[in-house]
């Protein structure tokens, strides 16, 4: 009985994860690559992740320390590039738009 419950739970878990992964980034979302200065390693990455993720409408976030960029996917009805730039500034980083596209392009 125990084993059965565990196996069921694991299967559910896998399904849940797969569904969760697929459901992000809808076609109406905006994907903007910001050049962010200056990120010095892991603590900067953690700080950006721990804050920008909580800005309105943000759905995905990728910090690239090598390229010094942060790619933000967000719902344009809830946020804008300007507001995100202000959010970076609040953390002490200057951010410029490198590239902005809709997610489906």
């Amino acid at each position, binding site marked *: 009985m125990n084993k059965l419950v*565990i196996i069921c739970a694991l299967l559910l*878990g896998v399904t849940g*994860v797969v569904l*969760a992964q697929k459901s992000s980034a809808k076609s109406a979302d905006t994907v903007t690559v910001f050049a962010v200065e200056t990120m010095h390693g*892991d603590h900067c990455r*953690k700080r950006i992740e*721990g804050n920008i993720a*909580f800005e309105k409408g943000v*759905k995905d*976030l990728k910090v690239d320390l090598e390229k010094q960029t942060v790619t933000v996917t967000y719902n344009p009805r809830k946020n804008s590039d300007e507001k995100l730039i202000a959010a970076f500034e609040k953390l002490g980083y200057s951010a410029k738009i490198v590239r902005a596209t809709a997610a489906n392009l």
Partner: protein
Amino acid sequence: MNKYIFLLFSISTLSIQAQQAENDSVAEPQERQLEEFHVVHRAPGLIKMRSSIFDTQKLTKQELQKAACCNLSESFETNPSVDVSYSDAATGAKQIKLLGLSGAYVQMLAENVPTLRGIAAPFGLGYTPGPWMESIQVSKGTSSVLNGYEALTGQINVVHLQPNAEEPLGLNVYASDMRRMEANANASVTLNDNLSTILLAHVDNDTREWDRNGDGFLDQPKAKQYNVLNKWDYRNGKFMSYSLLRYLHEDREGGQIREVPDPYKIGIATNRYEFYTRNGIILDSEKERSIGLAISGSYHEQDARYGLKIYDAEQSNLYANLTFATGFNDGNKLSVGASFNRDNINEYSPLHLSQGGVFIENVPGIFAEYSLKLHDKIIVLLGLRDDYSSRYGNFLTPRLHTKFDFSKSFYVRASVGKGYRSPNALAENSYILASNRTLTINDNLKQEEAWNYGVNATAHIPLFDKELTLNGEFYRTDFSNQVVTDLDSDPHKATIANLDGKSYANSIQLEASYELLRGWTLTAAHRITDAKTSIGGKLREKPLTSRYKSLLTTSYRTRLKKWQFDFTTQLNGGGRLPDPDEDNPLWDKEFEAYPILNAQVTKFFRGWSIYLGAENLTNFKQQNPIIAASNPTGTNFDASMVWGPIDGRRIYVGARWNLQKF
């Protein structure tokens, strides 16, 4: 069925985190460059030190937070290599096992300075609160001779939060369904360009009586702990200095519940004072030439009552280590130095120590270590120590480590080395006092001495744009002298004597880890342990040691790292119990395999997080952990036959808050 709902909830949303290893303490500059990470992929919380010549894993803060409760002893719940178990059913003391052998053979370090030696060892894992730790490094096999001759099976180095941390204020509170309460706070201040400090404080309170298995004994002793630590960091050009001060007080009260008339009580009160200072000067940064001096000291006192038995002990320790290191043009490196260790142990236990137990041991020693690089593919580390113990005389510690890089993603390490340890017979076996076995400690116990051999191979295989890491290892520890506790020859006796015959432990472990999907990591491991010791003239399997362990740990963190789900399951193989009485067996000859499931969900907010978790989800409990519990004054009473969990499922909640530097 209800009990599975939480489990279902926990696993059905499995996810993981993607944080990297934070910068390490300045004491380990060589490790900074070792960690090779990908930015987008989730780095595991458990990091194999790829370039290190030692078989070292680093448990990052993220890994430690996967099982939020409570202190160093619980930090290894998600770790395949280190086992944690209760030493007995009454004191709540936890011990670790590495490579199939007791934690006594693992050298404990705090920021690379030896700590928790001698009488502090049995309860020592409870002295470092989880939220205080920045990271833990676990090395298997004999380690560098720079830190001494102990480390027979490995080394555990704890790095506390740093004074110059990014988060100057932190708070953590925790509560469990068994009414254990914990609070931790940390505050760091940068006083000027050169000087910074951090204060860590911890208090826990576990004062409810629980007897869920109905044997009349508390499942967990009631406990209270106050713990403060202050660290200083001073840097001025080429001079660096780190210092630490620490005080701990702990009260434990176990034994029979209040309702029992004239109850059998166990009480242990501990005070511990500790300091260290590590100072280094870089003489020539190009040539990696430096000189370092570490000095540490501690005073530990413990007053214990086990029913009518008394065990009071105090220990003062002083340690100094002076090391000179220099690099050569060809990338080779030499370290030489001298160390001094003094232990002064004063034990009082009228029933067990015929004469007052005063032990003083002074050990001056010299050491040298040479690291040699051949064709960028092979590193050889040769180490040699010569120490003189005032109790055991002169002894040599040779150690050899090698690493062959067949490619960047496939490498093999091999090591062979000797290790020694001065036994503290009563302190290490104090769990036997929670029984009515007649304890005999033979005179003239010798210094413990063993060879350790190890080989391990690691491959990082690219698979679907991610990396599959496979690791296989074999370790053997072979004792030429060991202090052996014989619980077999007579079920009413315990005899501590020198090894007469063979004693060894073999450990084989296979491990695989992979990031299945973005944010979802999985580690699976299996280990087989074969530990045998000559007891009563026969080579026998070491009692109370699981023959194998399987572990599966998985973690998922959502894309924006707002949720994290962790789940760990382990299956601990069965093993042998000390021989029961032939005519009137009160316990079995063997114990069976048992599972342990842990799960935790964490929700992150800006600057703070909350977590909900459960340990031992299946509520597995060892039946009758205390033999003859109804009569603690009778000859059969024995709380030391512990092989599995005593308390059942534990559910906990907690919150962490951090002020961020802006």
